[in-house]
C-alpha cells in the first residue's frame, strides 16, 4: 500500500523531473536576468566593477534619466525609429503584392517562390558585406580637388547608366539619408522572404468562393484586392507587421554587416547605431545604464505591440 502511494506521489511529480534540465537553465539564464536587470536599472550608476569592491548604490531613476539625456542614445533611438517606420510598411506592401502575384500564376510559381525565399537562408552579416561592396566606391578623396575614384560601384554605375549622378552611399563623408536608404534596401531585401511565406500561406487558405463571387459580380481586380484579399488576409498582415516592428526595434546585425562594428561610415563611428547597439556598447562598463536602456527597449516593443494588436483587433476580419 505504501509503495503504491509512493508511486502515485512520484507520478504526480514526474513531470518536474523531465522538465528539470530546462527549468534549471531557464532559472539561470532567463529568470535571474529578468530580476537582475530590473534591479540594476534602478540602482543609480550601477556597475559590476564597483559592486565587486563593495560599493553601495542608491535606488532611483537616475539611470533612465542619464540614458534618455544622452545624445548617443537619442541618435540610436532615432535611427531605430526611422528604420522601423521605413522598412516595415515598405516590406509588408511589397511582400503583399508579390504574394498576390505569386498566388495568381501557376507556371513556374514554385520556382519563383523558392527564389524569393533565398535571402532568408543567408548569413545577414555575410550578405551585408556583399551589399556594402555593391554600394562601395573604391578610391578616396571624394569631393575634393584631387579626387581619385577608381570605381563607383555597381549601384552607382546603374544610376549613371540612367543618366543620374553617382551618390556617396556608405563611404566616409556620406550623407545620413544615403546611409539610411542603403540600410532600408538591405533590411527590406532581408525581410521579404518571411513575409512572402506567411502571406502566401494565408492566400492559399482563402476560400476560392469569394473570388468567384467577385468575378460573377464583375468586380475589378483592384477592388477585389482591397475589398476581399486584404480583409481576409488581415490576420496574417497583422502578424507580419507586429513581428516586423519587433524585429525592427532590435535591428543590429544588418548594420554591422554593412558598416562593420563601427556602426557608421569610416570616421563616423556610431552614426547608425541602434538601441540594441547602445545596449551592447554599455554592457561591459555601465551595466546600470545598459539595463535601463534594455527596459526602455522592452517598454517600446511592448507598447508598439499593444497598439498593433489594438488596431488589428479593430481592423482585422476573422
Amino acid at each position, binding site marked *: 500500500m505504501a509503495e503504491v502511494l509512493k508511486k502515485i506521489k512520484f507520478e504526480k511529480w514526474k513531470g518536474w523531473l523531465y522538465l528539470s534540465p530546462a527549468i534549471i537553465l*531557464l532559472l539561470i539564464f532567463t529568470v535571474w536576468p*529578468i530580476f537582475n536587470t530590473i534591479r540594476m536599472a534602478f540602482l543609480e550608476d550601477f556597475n559590476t566593477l564597483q559592486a565587486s569592491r563593495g560599493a553601495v548604490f542608491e535606488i532611483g531613476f537616475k539611470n533612465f534619466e542619464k540614458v534618455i539625456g544622452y545624445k548617443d542614445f537619442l541618435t540610436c533611438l532615432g535611427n531605430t525609429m526611422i528604420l522601423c517606420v521605413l522598412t516595415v510598411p515598405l516590406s509588408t506592401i511589397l511582400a503583399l503584392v508579390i504574394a498576390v502575384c505569386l498566388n495568381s500564376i501557376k507556371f513556374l510559381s514554385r520556382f519563383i517562390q523558392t527564389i524569393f525565399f533565398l535571402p532568408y537562408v543567408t548569413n545577414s552579416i555575410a550578405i551585408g558585406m556583399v551589399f556594402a561592396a555593391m554600394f562601395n566606391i*573604391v578610391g578616396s578623396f571624394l569631393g575634393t580637388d584631387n579626387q581619385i575614384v577608381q570605381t*563607383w560601384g555597381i549601384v552607382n554605375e546603374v544610376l549613371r547608366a540612367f543618366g543620374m549622378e553617382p551618390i556617396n552611399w556608405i563611404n566616409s563623408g556620406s550623407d545620413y539619408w544615403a546611409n539610411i536608404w542603403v540600410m532600408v534596401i538591405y533590411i527590406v531585401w532581408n525581410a521579404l522572404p518571411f513575409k512572402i511565406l506567411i502571406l502566401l500561406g494565408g492566400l492559399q487558405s482563402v476560400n476560392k468562393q469569394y473570388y468567384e463571387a467577385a468575378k460573377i459580380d464583375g468586380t475589378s481586380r483592384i477592388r477585389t484586392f482591397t475589398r476581399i484579399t486584404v480583409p481576409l488576409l488581415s490576420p496574417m498582415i497583422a502578424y507580419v507587421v507586429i513581428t516586423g516592428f519587433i524585429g525592427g526595434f532590435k535591428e543590429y546585425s544588418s548594420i554591422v554587416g554593412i558598416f562593420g*562594428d563601427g556602426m557608421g561610415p569610416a570616421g563616423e563611428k556610431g552614426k547608425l547605431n541602434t538601441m540594441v547597439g547602445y545596449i551592447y556598447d554599455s554592457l561591459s562598463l555601465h551595466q546600470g545604464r545598459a539595463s535601463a536602456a534594455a527596459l526602455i*527597449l522592452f517598454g517600446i516593443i511592448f507598447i508598439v505591440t499593444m497598439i498593433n494588436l489594438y488596431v488589428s483587433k479593430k481592423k482585422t476580419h476573422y
Partner: protein
Amino acid sequence: MFDIKKISEKISSLFGAKKEQNDTSVLKTMEEKDMSRVNRTQRVVQVLVKIALYAFLLTMAVIVLFPFYWMLISSVKSLEEYNLSVPTLFPEAFHFENYVEGFKTANLGQLFLNTVFVGVVSTILSLVITVLSAFAFARLEFVGKNALFAALLATMMIPGELFTITNYQTINDFFGLKTLGNQIGSKFLQEIGNWQNTYTVLIVPFLVSVFYIYLLKQNFMQIPNELYLAAKVDGTTDIKYLWKVMIPLAFPTIISITILKMMGAWNSYIWPRLVANDDAHKLITNGLRGADFTVDSMVHYPRQMAAVAIVSLPLFLVFLFFRKYIMKGVSRSGIKG
C-alpha cells in the same frame, strides 16, 4: 360560329409569342455576340495581366538574386578587374585562387570546425531538453503544469537583449565563483567561474528554447493518448515510448528544429563576439566580419567575396535539401535562425 375575337387573340398571342420568341432569340444572339466579344477582350486583358504579372515577378526575382550573382562574379575577378572604372558584368578570367586566399585570410578552416562543433553539440543537447520538456507538457499530469507553461510562454515576450546584460556578468563570474576563487586563491574556482573563451559559453546559455518546446508539445499532443496508455499497460518505460513512438511520429518537427538550430549557430554573431574572440573558439560569422582582407592598403574585395561565398554555401546546400522543413519551421516560428 367562329369566335373571331378568340381566334384573332389566339393568332395574335401566337404571333406575339412568336415575335417574343424571335425577340429573345435575337437578343440571345446579340448577347452571345456581346459575350464572345467580352470574352475576347477579357481574354486579351487576362493575357496582358499574366504578362505583367510575370514581368513584375521576374524583375523582382532578378533584383533579389542580384547580390548573390554579384558575390559570385566578384569572387572570381582579379583585383584589377574588380577595380575597373566601369565594372564588368561577367568576369574576363576566372581567378579561383581568390577562394584559396580568402579561405586562408579569414582562417575559415578553424572557424568552420569551431562552428560545426558548437552547432552539433548544442543541437543534440537542445533536442534532448526540448523532447523531455515537450513530453512532460504534452503527456504528463503534474502539479503546477499549466502555470509553468504559461510562465514559459510569457518569457518569449521579452527581448533577448534584456537577458544578455546579466548573462554576460554570469559567464564572467559564475555566481561569484571567480571572485571567491580570487579571494581564497583557488585556481580551480577561478577557472570554473570564468566562462570567457570556452565552448560552454557558446553552447549552454541558449540550450532551452521555449518556442521549440511549444512547437514540439503541439506536435506531441496530436498523437493519441491511448497509445501512451497502452504502452503503460504493457509496462513500457516513458523513455522507450518516447524513442519508439513519439519521436518517429514527430520527426518532421524535430528535423525543422535541428536545421533551424544549426543555422542559428552558423549565423550567430552578437553573443559569440562578446564572449569568444580567441582563435580556438571564434565562430564563423564573427571571424568573417573581423577578417582583414587588406592587401597593399586596399581591401581585396574579390577575396572577401570569395570568403563570403564559402560561408554562404553550406546554408544554400541545407536549403536545397531541406527546403520543406525549413519553410515549415520558419512559417511557424517567425524568428530568424
